[in-house]
Each structure stands twice: as structure tokens, then as C-alpha cells.
């Protein structure tokens, strides 16, 4: 493996807390858009639910900062599960809780461990929601992102570059949900009428991965 061009950000508790803060900010900015997407094929509350959950998480983690990246992620996951309700609370909560559990209690983790943790989180989401790629869900953004990140790391890319690749894959994955027929969640009640709309969950998933890539980029500067 070649040495990265710029210093790699350390994936520690501070890094994960900065990801949470950035994610909360992005969700705030995009809440109206997420709710608009959700009104077309759901029940018009995805933006406000995500906002409520991430605001609570950001607030609580500030008051009680955990010492390891795994503990921070698991903590955010638990807060989302406790605060959001509906479908997105358990799904995003599981994503972060499983990822946190996979990181164990190391104070700093390698990029490869972060990738494995994200993969564990995405597997948890797929298992809980019973969704596969192509069902027009979060998985359509998350799965390709983890794949792209792994592919980049295997080729010797830096964490910053691997997360940039993950972000692009997630954004493309979210856009790719537009022509899909929803097979899971409330949108599935619409059948054919779900076609032609971008999935709100895939969209918010891409936002979270974008926030992660941004935080890594900033940390590397």
C-alpha cells in the first residue's frame, strides 16, 4: 500500500462525533426536501422524523460524550431508536448501533475496520427491513456505497478517497431508485404509482454518507 498524499484523519470518537454534527446539520438543511419526497410516496414525515432524531442525538452526545468511536456510534443508534419511531428510527438506529458494535472498544480504528463496521450496519438494516437492492429503499444507496468504499480500499486508496467513492455510489444509488417499483414500506401500497419518485430513505442515506465523506476530507486537510 502506498502512503496517502495527505495525512489521514484518525477515526476516533471525535471523528464520529463530528460526523454526527455534520449529519445533523445536513438533515436540518434537507428536511423539507426529504419530507417532499416522502409526501409523494409515503406519509410526509421523513424530514421531520430525521430532524427530531438527529437533533436529539447531537444534543445528547454533546452532554455525554462517549470515549470510543464504537460507543459513540452505538449511542447515536440507541437515541435514534428511542426518539424517532415509525420505520426510519429502527432502521437508522440499527445501521449505527450495529456499526458501533462492530467497532468494539478500540479508541481508534483503521479504515478497513470502519468499512467492516459500515457493512455490518448495512447488513443489519437489510435484515431488519427485509429489503434487498432494487426494492427502492435505503439499501439502494447504502449497499453500493459500502461496496465502493471496500473496492477503493482494496486498491490502496486513502480513507478520504474511499469515502468520496462511497458518497458518489450512494448518490447514484439514490437517483437510481426513481424508476424502481417500491417493494417495501408504505410506498409499496402504491404499487405502480411508486415509479418515477426518488426514495426518501435512499436520499437521506446518501446525505449521511456525504456528511461522512466531508468530515474525512476536512480532517485530512
Amino acid at each position, binding site marked *: 500500500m502506498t502512503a496517502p498524499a495527505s495525512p489521514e484523519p484518525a477515526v476516533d470518537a471525535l471523528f464520529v462525533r463530528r460526523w454526527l454534527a455534520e449529519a445533523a446539520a445536513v438533515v436540518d438543511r434537507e428536511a423539507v426536501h426529504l419530507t417532499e419526497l416522502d409526501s409523494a410516496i409515503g406519509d410526509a414525515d421523513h424530514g421531520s422524523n430525521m430532524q427530531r432524531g438527529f437533533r436529539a442525538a447531537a444534543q445528547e452526545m454533546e452532554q455525554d460524550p462517549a470515549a470510543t468511536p464504537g460507543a459513540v456510534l452505538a449511542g447515536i443508534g440507541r437515541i435514534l*431508536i*428511542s*426518539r*424517532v*419511531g*415509525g*420505520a426510519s*428510527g*429502527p*432502521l437508522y*438506529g*440499527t445501521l449505527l448501533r450495529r456499526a458501533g458494535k462492530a467497532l468494539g472498544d478500540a479508541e481508534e480504528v483503521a479504515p478497513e475496520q470502519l468499512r467492516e463496521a459500515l457493512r455490518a450496519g448495512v447488513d443489519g438494516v437489510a435484515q*431488519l*427491513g427485509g429489503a434487498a437492492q432494487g426494492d427502492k429503499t435505503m439499501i439502494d444507496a447504502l449497499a453500493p456505497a459500502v461496496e465502493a468504499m471496500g473496492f477503493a480500499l482494496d486498491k490502496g486508496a486513502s480513507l478520504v478517497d474511499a469515502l468520496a467513492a462511497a458518497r458518489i455510489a450512494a448518490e447514484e444509488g439514490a437517483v437510481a431508485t426513481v424508476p424502481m*417499483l417500491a*417493494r*417495501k*414500506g*408504505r410506498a*409499496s*401500497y402504491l*404499487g405502480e404509482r411508486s415509479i418515477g419518485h426518488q426514495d426518501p430513505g435512499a436520499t437521506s442515506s446518501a446525505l449521511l454518507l456525504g456528511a461522512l465523506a466531508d468530515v474525512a476530507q476536512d480532517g485530512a486537510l
Partner: protein
Amino acid sequence: MLINVPETVVADALRGMAVAHPELAVDVENRVVVRRDAPVPGKVALVSGGGSGHEPLHAGFVGRGMLDAACPGEVFTSPVPDQMVRAAAAVDSGRGVLFVVKNYTGDVLNFDMAAELAEDEGVQVAKVLVNDDVAVVDSLYTAGRRGTGATLFVEKIAGALAEEGAPLEAVQAVARRVNESSRSFGVALGACTTPAKGGPTFDLPLGELELGIGIHGEPGRERRPMMTSGEIADFAVDAVLDDLAPDSPVIVLVNGMGATPLLELYGFGAEVQRALGARGTAVARTLVGNYVTSLDMPGASVTVCEVDEELLRLWDAPVCTPGLRRGC
């Protein structure tokens, strides 16, 4: 609406339940309603929950012979897992807990999470999914049928078996059997009013009715000009029996959606009885009333459950809850 502010509707109702039903332990802050004598030694516990707005479901069915605990969410929004975990811990006697879950994505996921968390805490959890609404197409490509009126049958019959001291596997098995033997169909004569919105959830002109509705003001299967009670009964019974085709007698729930007077509901119940008879289905028991409601929606649903001697015996067993009470 007879409320203070929308934000406190659920908490206000729970405070009122605590006053009216001292036999229940009502935790207003954590939104858990528990039988005061729980955990009942040697008994499998039943825990259910869901969005508020369907009263007396679920908290009104907490008591001997039915649920051990209920977890009310916000209006039409699933509760969060913390509520179910807290409820499970409060009612588990060591013989395990059955979660009764209506089939909506949010409810399913939150109960799944709760089961995982409760098991981490050493509580043995089994689940039953209620999905009886024939108005929704059930296929691999949808979230599946909605849970509606059959929830009452599942909670009553499984609750009775649990009260007899049956093990968790048996209570879960009978709950599943009741769900598989049940079908529902609902009609609305108007929309309901959610506290948050303060107005009707959809526009239904006077003189029209919506056929195949759920219990959250969701759209139905089709909209038609007003029909008579007898015509609606025929339509609902046809929809249900086309899907179930029972060989044995059935229990019938003629359920009001919240704003239909009992005078009309009893009349509708007679028509449902006639319609079932016309299709050759014997009725073993009938329950008429507002049990699985949709806030102030005018309308009704019909649920039938095909029963054998065991299910009928469990249906007839004593039940002592605020919402359903006999033999106490």
C-alpha cells in the same frame, strides 16, 4: 375537538385512564399501561401497542384474560422500542412475553427492535403479526395486509390461553391460528380528524362512501354513492368470505370506527348476520361495538374468525379489561 393542545393528547388520555381504571398501572411519562397485578406468576405475558387513535385498542384491553401491557404511540404513529422493552420487563414472570403486532412497517420494525433489546435483558420474546385486512393486496411486492379488527380476536383468545398457564409456544401458536382464521373489511362514511391537523384527513363528499378503508384514514379500495346498511353488509361479507371461505362457524366483530352511533351499528350487525347466513356461514358469537376505531371516523368494519371448539372456549373465557368485560 375536546382537547387542550395536540401535543398532549396521548398523555392527557393516559392520565384519564389512570383515574378511571385504578386496576391498571399507568406510566404516563413512559407511555406504558400495565396490569397492576403483573407479573402474574407462572403466566406468559401478552404485550401489544401501536399508534393512538384506535381506542379502546390497545390500552383498553389490558387486564385479566387479555393483555398484560400496552404501549400507546403518538396518534397513528408506532410506539418506540423503549416502551415495549419497559413493558416486557414489567410483565415477564419468567415464562416469556408474546408481542402482538399489527402489520405496519413502523410497528413491525419497532417491535422487532424491542424484541432484540428485551432478549438482551434476558426476556424470552415471541411475536405474532396481525394482517387481516382483505382490502390490501397481499403479495411479495407490498408491505402486506394491514392489521385491523382481528387484533381484538388475537388478544382475547391468546390472552385466555395464557391465563390458563399455557407455555409461550402454545400461546404464540394459538395467536397465529386466530390471525390466519380471521379476515376484515371496513367502510367509511367520512374522514377522521387528527389532532395535529385539526381537520379531516381526506375529502369524502356527503352521500358517498369509501370501501376497503384501513384504520388511519388511508384511502380505500373504491368510492361509491351511498349504499344502505344491508347493501354495505353484503359488500363487506362478500369481500371477507371470498378470501376466507370458512367451513366451520365464525365469531363476528361488527366494529364501529368511532363516530357511528350504536343504533346504526346494531342495525348493521343484523344485516351482517343476514348476509353471512345467506352465504351459508354459521355464526357462533357476535360482538357489536366500537373496539378498533379510527378517531372520529364514521363507518364500520366486519371481522370474522373461523373457530373450532378450542377457540370458541377461549373466546368465551372471562375477560376483565376496561374495553371488554364479561365473567369478572
